[in-house]
C-alpha cells in the first residue's frame, strides 16, 4: 500500500533513506477476497490487551474487533518496530515547516484517506450553554433516548 510505503520512508532516518511497511504507522487491514480494507493509523500504546473481543458484521462482512483498533498492543505485531518491538505512533508527519497533509494522505490518490482540520468544531463545543451541559450530564447518566421520551411526554402533557 502506498500509504505504508511512504509513511515508513518519511520516518526513516535520514528521511526517505529507507522504507519498510512493517515500520509504518498506518496499516491497511486487508483481506481482498472478503473485501475488507480498513486503514488504521497508530494510536496510543497499550500495556495490556483488552479483555473482551468481539466480531463485528458490517454490510455482511465480518471484522475482527482488532481491525478497528489503533493501539500498539501485546496481542499483535501491528505498530511495533520489527527489530526492537518498540511501539509506533502516528505523528501526522510532524515536521518543520509543517506539511500541508500527512504523507499517507498525499500518496493516496484514491481518496481512501482524507485529512481534515476539525478545530473549529471543538471551539463550538467549548461554548456549551449551562442548560446543554446539564442535559449532557443527564444524558450520560440516563441515556439520550430516555430523556427524549420524557421531554416528549412533558411537552405532550403541557399541550393537553
Amino acid at each position, binding site marked *: 500500500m502506498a500509504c505504508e510505503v511512504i509513511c515508513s520512508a518519511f520516518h*526513516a532516518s535520514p*528521511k526517505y533513506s529507507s522504507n519498510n511497511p512493517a515500520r509504518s504507522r498506518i496499516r491497511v487491514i486487508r483481506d481482498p477476497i472478503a*473485501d475488507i480494507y480498513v486503514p488504521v493509523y497508530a494510536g496510543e500504546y497499550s500495556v495490556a490487551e483488552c479483555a473482551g473481543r468481539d466480531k463485528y458484521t458490517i454490510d455482511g462482512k465480518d471484522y475482527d474487533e482488532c481491525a478497528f483498533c489503533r493501539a500498539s498492543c501485546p496481542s499483535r505485531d501491528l505498530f511495533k518496530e520489527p527489530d526492537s518491538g518498540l511501539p509506533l505512533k502516528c505523528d501526522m508527519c510532524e515536521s518543520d515547516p509543517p506539511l500541508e497533509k500527512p504523507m499517507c494522505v498525499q500518496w493516496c*490518490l484514491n481518496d481512501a484517506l482524507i485529512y481534515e482540520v476539525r478545530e473549529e468544531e471543538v471551539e463550538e463545543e467549548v461554548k456549551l450553554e449551562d442548560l446543554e451541559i446539564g442535559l449532557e450530564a443527564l444524558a450520560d447518566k440516563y441515556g439520550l433516548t430516555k430523556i427524549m421520551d420524557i421531554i416528549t411526554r412533558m411537552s405532550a402533557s403541557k399541550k393537553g
Partner: protein
Amino acid sequence: MRYAETGFNLEIDLTRGSIERVATDPGETGLYLGGLGTNAKLLWDRVPPEVEPFSPENLLIFAAGLLCGTPAPGCNRTIVSTISPQTRLMAFSMMGGFWAPELKYAGYDKVILRGKSPGLVYLWIHNDKVEIRDASHLQGKGANETAELIQQELKEPKAQVAAIGLAGENRVYFASIEQGRSSASRGGIGAVMGDKRVKAIAVRGTGDINIAQSVEFLALCNEVLNYIKVRADNPIPGVMPILAGLGSPQEMRIHDEKWHTESFMWGNSRERRKDFWTEEVEKEWMETMENARTRLISCYNCPMKCAATISLPGLPTYMMKCFSKLTYTMAAFSNLDFGLRIAQRATEYGVDAFSTPQVMAFGLELYENGILTDTDMKGLPSDNDERFFWLLDRIVRREGIGDLLANGTYWAAQEIGKGAEAFAHNNIKKTEQMPLKLSMLNPIYFLMYCTGEKVNITQIEGQFPQMPFETREEREEFVKDWVQVPDEKFKDYFLDWELRGEKSFPYYPTVQMCCDIVDWQEKMHYIDDALGMCAGLSSFPLKPPYHIHNYPDLISAGAGIEMDEARLTKAAKRYRTLVRAINIRRGMRRKDEKPPENHWKKRFPELEKELLDTYYTFKGWNNEGIPTKESLHDLGLDYVSDDFLQRGILTDSDKEVSHEG
C-alpha cells in the same frame, strides 16, 4: 551498502533440500540492472542448450525487479524466468501483485530453484528463516485455495503466496503461477514449477530497503504521482476508452466492449462478428459485470485499479484483470456470465487465459472437422458451455484427449496429425496469440510479431499510437505534450502518418522508421522488466509517467548506479541481446520469426523481407537473426561470441555486419 536491491539471492536445490543465501556481484547490476536482465545472465551461465525444460538442471528463477520495494509507484513485478516447455526457449513471464516487494523486504532479490523435489513441497521464506515444507496435503488444491491454506497454516495472513494449481502439478504446457490478482501465465512456467514439485512459495518480510539519494528519489516519485493525476484528468482523445488512460487496459472498469467483440476473432480465432455489440448485449453484459464485480483493486503501491474482485453466486470470490474477461467468452461463442464463471475455475487450476480458451476451441474445431473422433471425445457434453468446462477439467488432469491438448495447439497438432496442424493457425514460436485476423499488413506489428521473444504482443507494444489519427490537427495536438519520445523524430513520424494514401500502411512508416519505433517500444518493456515496473504505468500506455528521460535518474537515485540515457539504452540492449543469445543457442533462427500465416490478408513478401533484413541489421544481428561478433563485443558480451564460435553458431568469417541499413 546496496541500494534498492538487497544484494542477496536465495539458491535452493530441491533435490538435496539445501538452501543458501548468496551475495551477488554489484558489477552485474550495473551491466544487467536486475529482474529480467540478471535472470538472463543466470540462464546463460548455468543452463546450457542441452538442458530440457523438465530437467532438474533447468532453473526456475523468481526475481523482484531492481526498484521493487522502493517507493517508486507501481513497481511491484515479479519476473519469472526459465526454459519453457512450450517454446523450448527462454520464458520470462511477469506478474504484478504483492509478491516481489515482500521478497525484497525479506532480504532477497531472487529465488533460484534448481533440481527436483522428491515430493510435493512449498517454500516458506520469512526473513532469515527459509524452509522447504511438505505440501502433500495441498496436492490438487486450487491456486487461490492453496494460498489461503498456507496463510492459515503459517498463521501469517500477511504472507504473500505464489502458487500453482492442478495444471502446474500436471505440467500443462500453458500452466500459470497465480498470485491472487496477478499471474505469470505465459510460456508454461507453472509446468516447470510443477515439474520441480513446488506447489507454492510463501514470503513474508519485515526488513528495510535502502535508497541511495533519498530526497532526489522521492522528488522523482512525487513527479510520477503528479503526472498520474494529470493523465487521469486528461484521457487521450481519439483512442478507444480502455486505452485512453494509464494502467492495464481498463477491462474491469469499462463496459463498452464493441472494439474487442467486433474486431477480435471468436472461436479458435476464426470468426469476426461485426454486428455483435447490440444494445441488448451491452445491457446484459453490463448487468453481469456490475453484479459480479465487488470492487476495483490495485497491486502493491499503485494508484491504478486495473483488477477487480469477482463474486458470482455459488462460486468462491476471485480476482481478475484485463482481457481474460473476454477470452473464454469469445473462444466459446458464449456470454460474459459464462466467461466469468469459467475464469474462476481456470484461475484455481492455474492456466494462461490467452492460450487455454484457444486450445479448447481448437479441440472442438478438430472434433467438428472429424479429426478428433467420438472415441477421442468420449463423454463430451452436448451443451456448448458445458463442453468448455469438460475440456478444461480434462486438460488440467491430462485425462484422455486432455493429455494431448495440455501440450498446447502446436504440440497437440503435431501429435494428432491428420491435418490438425492447419488448425493450430494462430501461433508464433509455438504459442497461441491474441485472436486477431486483420486485413492490411501493419509493418510495425509485423516486426514485433516476428522478433518478439516474449511471444506476446501486448508485452512489447505501446508508446507509439497503434493507428494514425484522422486529421493533422489531432496529430499536432497529440504531439504537443509528448515528452516521452526518445527523439523528436518520432513526432514527425506520427505527424505525417495518414489513414489513407501515400503515407499509410504498408509503406509508411518507412522501413527505417518502423525499426526505430519497434526498437523504442521493445526497449521500454525490457527496461520495465529489469526494474520490476508495471508496463501499465510505463511501456504499455500512451504518454506514461515513466520514460527514457526520467528512468536514468530514478535508477541513479534509487539504486546508486551511475546512469544516463545512453548507459540505460546500452544496458537494456545488452540483456535483450543476451535473451536472444540464449534462444539462438537453443536453435531459434530466422525461419522461426514470422507472424501467424493468416494474421493479415494483404501481405507484401518483398517489403516484409526488407523489414526483417533492415531490423536485424539495425539490432546488430546477422541475416539469420544471430547477434554478430562485433555487436556482441560492443555490448561487452564477448563470452557469448566465444560460445557461438565454439558451437559453430558463428564462424570467424561472420563479418557481414553493416550499419548502413
